[in-house]
């Protein structure tokens, strides 16, 4: 049996659920088993949001990832990545945006926060919003993040993720599909550089 448990997180409105939808689509295309728990409702209003995504070649029971069970944390925001640390497996990886979203008065010190993050065994962090903007894709920062995370999701081949992006965004038109595919490639190439 091979499996991967992914904790997706961020702040309401950052596009976490779109990442989850693409991964769900890719898992379906690959014939993998999947469970994906989402947060809807009150917490979506600028609060912390997260989604538990479990992929496996064998049947999956729990919709939720147990403590210490997440092979990967994928986060749109650095403090939100830290929030789920107790869920990270001992040798799990964290792929996160490094840009703080400060919408609370008591946001922690940025330097301390990033050094706590960097002290973890496997961390890839990048200012995905800046990268997305520089690449002319300001609305696709979440797909940049997915591209960064892709090398850590061995169960889903890169080509399969591309197909999933195309399918998920197809109803929004070809331009949106292209932008998201490009953002994914940008993220993927950054991941390669940063990981080296």
């Amino acid at each position: 049996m091979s499996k991967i448990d992914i904790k997706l997180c961020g702040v309401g409105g950052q596009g976490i659920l779109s990442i989850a939808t693409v991964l769900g689509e890719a898992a379906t295309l690959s014939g993998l088993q999947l469970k994906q728990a989402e947060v809807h409702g009150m917490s979506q209003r600028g609060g912390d949001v997260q989604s538990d995504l479990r992929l496996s070649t064998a049947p999956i029971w729990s919709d939720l990832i147990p403590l210490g069970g997440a092979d990967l944390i994928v986060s749109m925001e650095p403090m939100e990545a830290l929030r789920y640390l107790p869920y990270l497996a001992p040798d799990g990886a964290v792929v996160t945006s490094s840009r703080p979203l400060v919408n609370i008065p008591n946001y922690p010190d940025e330097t301390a926060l990033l050094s706590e993050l960097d002290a973890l065994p496997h961390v890839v962090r990048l200012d995905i919003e800046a990268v997305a903007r520089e690449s002319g894709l300001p609305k696709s920062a979440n797909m940049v993040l997915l591209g960064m995370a892709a090398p850590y999701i061995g169960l889903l081949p890169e080509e399969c993720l591309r197909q999933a992006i195309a399918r998920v965004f197809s109803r929004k038109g070809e331009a949106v599909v292209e932008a998201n595919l490009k953002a994914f490639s940008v993220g993927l190439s950054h991941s390669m550089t940063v990981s080296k």
Partner: protein
Amino acid sequence: MSEKRLLLGDEAVALGALYAGLSGVYAYPGTPSTEITEYIQQSPLARERGVRSRWCTNEKTAMEAALGMSYAGKRALVCMKHVGMNVCADAFVNAAVTGVKGGLVVLAADDPSMHSSQNEQDSRFYGRFAMVPILEPSCQQEAFDMVADAFALSESLRLPVLMRLVTRLAHSRAAVQIGAPLPQNAFDPDDERTRWVLLPGNAKRQYASLVAKQEEIGSRAGTSPRNTLSLGEKGGLGVIAAGIGHNYVREVLPAGVSVLKLSQYPLPASQVRSLAAHCGRILVVEDGQPFAEEQVRALLGPDYPVQGRLDGPLPRTGELTPDCVAAALGVGGAAPHAPALNLAARPPQLCQGCGHRDVYAALNRVVEEFPGARVFGDIGCYTLGALPPFRAIDSCVDMGASITMAKGAADAGLRPAIAVIGDSTFTHSGMTGLLDAVNDRSAITVIISDNLTTAMTGGQDSAGTHKYEAICLALGVEREHLHVVVPLPANMEEITRILREEIAYEGVSVIIPQRECMQTLGRKLRQKKQQS
């Protein structure tokens, strides 16, 4: 014809109902149940079949309309969040007394851990109270399959059937195997007046017949393929795993443990006895309140060791997690990473540019001038006005309670007594309270913060849009004490002036700040852009 679709638990229920020949869904939005009705509203099959799906004013109107559709022979579904059961309880309990004709399924989505709710009441108690069958799926596939079972059971027993979800199933996605859709029922109104007219003479007969059905309802649960017993080591641990609790148990199931999977109630007493006889002790794992646990304890007596939420192995409050279930089964471990140090809570907040913000800014400015003032809040996005930076409301209890609590406090002498209620909440449960206040000439100031939508649950249509002035006037609010304003920083002077004047008035005044929700507006603009 068979295919797999990736569906939320809510969507699995919706599609299951459509494939079971549904003719109408009746619902008021409420997390975590909203996506059921939304799915049906967007379903091509529902459109093709003319399935009725517009939002209702509240859960009681929904329940009654569904009963009417059932009366006419068609299959109907009612959906709500758990606290909605309180609103429709009158109709729900009495629908068990009249019985049904077309299948009637009542779906309650419970919210243990209160992710988006004010309590964690367990809807299964309502099912037992009304003496109807209860179904509780453990996964998305079972949710899909079970709806068809529920409609068939409802028609065969001529009773409403309660189906219960919890947040983690309602809002979790998995692949669901879909078969072929069943045809809808023919239009065939009932004509048995003696069972539908609940005058005491008829009601006594109907109630006796409901009581007489209990044995049959029990035996259906006792033989249900949804309740499965798998025996392990003799004399070892037996687990009764209800609904989604079954998943957490199976996630870590230690060898030799016996499991009774529980998905249909009343509690299957003979299976519980078999499990007890085989095992030396029992652990009850259920999400929500200790509904089955109390019954299992009563059934097995004080000498049989039963554990669960009531005595500590599982927490008394909050939703189940794979971690607390693993710990109760003795296989839990510590998390490898300690909680982070550089971490702060990030509560939800009103969107930037939201009209509710301007309402609270104005209200706070005026309320400051009246040290005894109290602001009675209500249920919706604007409840977030309780949090910083506004800290603007003193209460939030249940749908509509802002107006009636302000009225009661004003009756007791509190001045100024101010109510803040949203547009959708006002039509849901605020109108009747406003009529009470008008009839009593209560000294209250009511703010109906109208954003033209049901915003908190994702922007569903609000039942009274463009009708609020007319409704208030018709309820007897005086024209000169009814104001419509546009909540924008530019209008702050006007709004605060009106607030001051109306607070001084010893009677009912209503102020309607009216500006469309930023989210709904944004979505409409995006849709327009896509279409052009």
